């Protein structure tokens, strides 16, 4: 197991370098960010040159990348154009998005798996059909529609909540955004659990367990559910990364100053240090989440061993 983890960690290095380089080139390929700083006018050449020099923009792209990478290893992600260190932005943004993602994951696990189990055990009944229809609706409506609608109804029309989350983003204000963010994945989790459960319900080991005379509850939870959760765990694992990066829409709607907001801001203002820095961290999150999922397999299914 230990050796496997080390091997996986080593494999991350080329993936990390490759992805960051691609992102770096793409961000820098869109054009000269210094021009955009001057508003709707011709930039003053001397000031523009000084700024380009400060951000290393006057050097060839490969060299810029090496300089950037060198700095990253010393923990320096550079400064955003407003002079704020990118690490400071990250320290503010990541905890908030992590909290939002955690709320969403909890919703997915609790509601998604519960609904999945209920429908999986009652295949073909009205409950099953009803939930299936509902998930279909949820999947087909884009997040910005559900988000804006929920915000308008609960925030403006009925006044139950504040439409915008305050800068500190406390947990209670994140419940609605978290639910909105979770909805689509939640629907997938429900369907995935249901299908997986339905498949395994006919498996030999379930029949054996029933034949042994085990109580129905024990058969369902210990045998059936545990084996059925493997694909669901895979999905949830990759979803952690997805939620953190994909929270952009939800974060904009509810004014949550997390990762999505910083990325959006960075892209709009062509603020390359912010974009590359945040995406680099997101790449790491994806890689680690995947590793964690693979390790969880071994926990859920003793037949899987990493040696």
């Amino acid at each position, binding site marked *: 197991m230990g050796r496997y983890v080390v091997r996986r960690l080593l494999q991350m290095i080329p993936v990390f370098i490759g992805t960051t380089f691609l992102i770096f080139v793409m961000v820098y390929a869109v054009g000269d960010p210094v021009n955009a700083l001057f508003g709707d006018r011709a930039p*003053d050449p001397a000031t523009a040159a000084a700024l380009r020099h400060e951000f290393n923009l006057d050097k060839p792209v490969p060299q810029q990348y090496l300089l950037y990478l060198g700095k990253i290893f010393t923990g320096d992600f550079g400064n955003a154009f407003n002079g704020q260190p990118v690490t400071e932005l990250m320290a503010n943004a990541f905890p908030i998005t992590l909290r939002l993602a955690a709320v969403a994951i909890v919703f997915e696990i609790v509601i998604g798996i519960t609904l999945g189990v209920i429908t999986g055990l009652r295949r073909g009944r009205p409950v099953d059909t009803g939930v299936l229809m509902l998930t279909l609706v949820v999947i087909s409506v884009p997040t910005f529609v559900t988000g804006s609608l929920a915000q308008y109804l609960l925030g403006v029309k009925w006044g139950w909540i504040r439409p915008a989350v305050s800068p500190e983003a406390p947990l209670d204000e994140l419940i609605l955004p978290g639910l909105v963010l979770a909805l689509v994945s939640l629907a997938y989790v429900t369907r995935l659990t249901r299908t997986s459960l339905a498949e395994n319900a006919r498996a030999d080991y379930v029949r054996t367990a029933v034949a042994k005379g085990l109580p129905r509850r024990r058969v369902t939870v210990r045998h059936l559910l545990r084996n059925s959760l493997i694909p669901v765990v895979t999905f949830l694992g990759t979803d952690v990364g997805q939620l953190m990066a994909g929270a952009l829409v939800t974060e904009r709607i509810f004014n949550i100053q997390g990762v999505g907001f910083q990325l959006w801001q960075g892209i709009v203002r062509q603020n390359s240090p912010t974009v590359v820095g945040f995406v680099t961290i997101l790449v790491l999150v994806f890689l680690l989440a995947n590793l964690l999922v693979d390790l969880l397999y071994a926990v859920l299914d003793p037949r899987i061993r990493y040696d």
Partner: protein
Amino acid sequence: MRGATRVTWALASSVAVALAAAACGGGDDDGGGTGSGDGVVRAFWTDPQNPIEPANTNEVQGGKVLDMAFRGLKRYDPETAKAENAMAESIDTTDQQNFTVKLEKGWKFSDGTDVTAHSFVDAWNYGALVTNKQISSYFFQFIEGYDDVHPDEGKPKAKKMSGLKVEDDHTFTVKLSQKFSLWPETLGYSAYAPLPEKFFTDHDGWLKKPVGNGPYKVDSYTKGQAMKLSKNEHYDGPDKPRNEGVELKVYTDQNTAYTDLQAGNLDVVDELPAGQLKNADKDLNGRYINQPAGILQTVSFPFYDEKWSSEDMLPVRRGLSMAINREQVTKKIYHDTREPATDLTSPVLKSAGGYKPGLCGDACEYDPEKAKKLIDDAGGLPGGKVTITSNVDTGSHRQWMEAVCNSINDTLGKNNACTVNPVPTFGEFRNSISQQKMTGLFRTGWQMDYPLIQNFLQPIFYTGGSSNDSHFSDKKVDDLMDEANELGDEGAAIAKFQEAEKRILDQMVAIPLWYQNGNAGYSSRVSDVKLNPFSVPVFTDIKVK
């Protein structure tokens, strides 16, 4: 049971991770909890693009803070846009080139230190020095010695401009590199604000919490989140705040801010989402402001390209202007937040400041028949077609370009005489402009630096002007502007500038499209909300119920 404990462990650990994530960064929970009875105005904000320094801020969001926390020598009256003395007691000159500035005594920064002549001279020298990389350093270009501290290339030869001399604590003299009679009127812009000692001794500390001499002082500033300002007790100017303070809240999306405004959680929003402009007046029960801003949109011809600049092409250039149905675009696309332009300035100047509607004459009136005749008689468009180029990442540029092209095509009775050339980003657009790659019409928006007719003409149409993107050059126009700058009488100077403007319009160097308005909405909790000529809300006047 071994397996059982493993599953429990897996679930327990994931819950633990979730809880830990939820717990960290919780911080203090008082955010956004400002009550309604404290007299504080809650206003929309987005993160300023650059650090908040007077000479390094060129957009409205940073400008908001500067307007509240700083006062320069002059201030532009929010209603008339006229420059009136603020910190200046007098600014005198006999030759329109050497100015003596006397400061009013008794002004203090919010940290209690005095505002002296040094506060201004040091701040201006800082703003001009090229190594300080200040975006707005070109504001100091008229002062003698600017070229030494801000050469186009290479290291600066001096650290201070030779044209600035401190006489005593409350007097300093300014020598300009050329005659410029309206120069004192430019001094209301925030780039000319004074800076306290702390700015130079503890720059990082100052940036974290700017200290100025304006009606408000900065209490706290969390970058990317919020800024809280309260009354500056040391402030003794005429425009003392009529509220207790201002809280600027950063929004990531204008739509969210608009929702928050409707829900009563926000008082002033000065960037309304484009999609809501149509309904804003109704949604907000009339608490909606739509007034001229100092922004003019034009499309220019590349005068470095013979096929457009030649004398024979004048009727074609005029014809194109007359082929554009400005009224339709401002109504249909912009919902009356733009107004068809008929000169090269802006209504915020008022006629006293040089705004002269109709100066363009027939050439800016939509007249398809005459337009077609003018263009056809001159032999048609060069090569039979014209393109309009602009960046399309902001401002509904693609929509209006298509509308303008349709209007031209309809006029000429051809399907593809006019085509749109969209450039994805502003950076790329700027690059191709500076490399003189334009082959047809291109967008040239102008946002004024100060409400003066000079600012709408000289940078854009003077030979070699800093924003003369079409590379237009006309000896007569240059001479008229030079003469205007030498005149001591303001009215006479403005008249001379208008003469130059008329000459530019007669040659149709740039087609005036529309004047841009500033928009804002406010809650029922506040009153007396208005925008100044730069479209920044006048926070000092806002009353909280």
